[in-house]
């Protein structure tokens, strides 16, 4: 009986611990209004929320906003530092950046949009790529958090893609022409309203998928990473630490790869969507 009760107690403790653990992980990947620096907890400014059209908009500078700014600054600095030169031949970091810019231009923009549109959209796509890549990679640095692990950030980026597809599609083909081009050729007239609704839903689904893909990929790595480290706390023993740290390091490297791949995929799909709206199937 005593043994049973002690087992129950242990089970309860484990359950409680794991609950604490999940709360701890949640806390780590979530947005917050503070930035924990070594030995100092920076309280970020908090503004009262604005009510607009019945929506509560909280424009306070949260942790992820700071991370976005850092990512933006790093991106801009990377480019300005790499290209402080004259002439046609780059050096050092410039070569890498330039290679990536050429890659985005040739393999992503021009490959999906065609020569003319590809060149026009290259700045947008390069910004997407480098901004997302830096935001992803910054999340891997201790003390920094992953802003792209916030669904609102990825949704914001996906909305930019969505608005670009609609805006440039309409600009290219006219309001009526663009929405007419959504429905594939050869559809009977009676099915047009249905097909139109389906296509609109398809567009929304594509961009929701774009949002969730980046968000889930970025947050999943961090959750796994914290979960591995949390095992040490959960089991209250250092014996598991080699396993935890080993897997943690493995996941960290995986995360580096995922950061790059997700930035590429987001840019690639944005290019594809914009390309599809500016040159619809003939």
């Amino acid at each position, binding site marked *: 009986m005593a043994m049973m009760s002690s087992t129950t107690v242990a089970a309860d403790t484990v359950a409680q611990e794991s609950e604490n653990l999940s709360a701890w992980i949640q806390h780590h990947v979530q947005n917050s209004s503070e930035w924990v620096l070594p030995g100092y907890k920076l309280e970020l400014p908090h503004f009262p929320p604005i009510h607009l059209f019945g929506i509560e908009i909280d424009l306070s500078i949260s942790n*992820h906003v700071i991370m976005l700014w850092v990512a*933006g600054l790093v991106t801009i600095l990377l480019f300005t530092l790499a290209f402080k030169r004259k002439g*046609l031949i780059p050096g050092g970091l410039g070569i890498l950046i*330039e290679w990536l*810019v050429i890659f985005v231009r040739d393999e992503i923009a021009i490959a999906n949009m065609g020569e003319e549109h590809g060149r026009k959209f290259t700045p947008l796509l390069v910004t997407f790529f480098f901004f997302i890549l830096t935001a992803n990679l910054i999340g891997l640095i201790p003390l920094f958090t992953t802003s792209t692990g916030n*669904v609102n950030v990825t949704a*914001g980026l996906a909305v*930019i893609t969505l608005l670009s597809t609609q805006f440039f599609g309409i600009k290219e083909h006219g309001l009526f022409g663009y929405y007419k081009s959504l429905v594939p050729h050869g559809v009977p007239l009676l099915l047009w309203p249905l097909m139109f609704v389906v296509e609109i839903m398809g567009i929304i689904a594509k961009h929701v998928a774009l949002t969730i893909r980046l968000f889930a990929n970025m947050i999943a790595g961090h959750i796994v990473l914290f979960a591995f480290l949390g095992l040490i706390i959960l089991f209250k023993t250092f014996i598991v630490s080699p396993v935890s740290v080993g897997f943690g390091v493995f996941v960290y490297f995986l995360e580096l790869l995922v950061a790059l791949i997700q930035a590429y995929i987001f840019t690639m799909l944005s290019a594809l969507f914009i390309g599809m709206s500016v040159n619809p199937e003939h």
Partner: protein
Amino acid sequence: MLELDPGMMIWTWITFFVVLVVLSKVALKPILTTIEDREKAIREDLEQAQKQREEAEQLLQKHRELMANTESEAQRLLKESRELAEQRRQELLKQAREESQKVVEQAKKEIEQEKENALISLRTEIADLAVNAAEKIIMHNLDEEKQKAIVNEYIKSLPKSAKN
């Protein structure tokens, strides 16, 4: 984790557009221009190189043809001059032979002439000598009587018809 936060979304847009604008103005425009300039420069260089290569090949072809022509020309000239020399040699040889023939003939003729002359003069000399000798002998041996006798003898020996 999935709660909506419009403020965050707005901040994302603001940040993204600031980055987009700054990057486009500060970095991307010059970078893309540089890349395109470089690509253009490389393409032009390649085209130029191609053109120059073609030109060089044409030149080489021409040069080779010229060389071949020159070779055959030289061969022809050599042959011609050899023939000419041979011809000239034959001519000279023939001429020399004729010349020597002529000289020999001339010499022979001269020798003949000289011999003739010598003979004539010798004959005259001998005749004179003989006459002189005969005169001397005759002067020595002949007196009036003998002379008369001889004349008579001579007259007697004349043919009969001459007597009339």
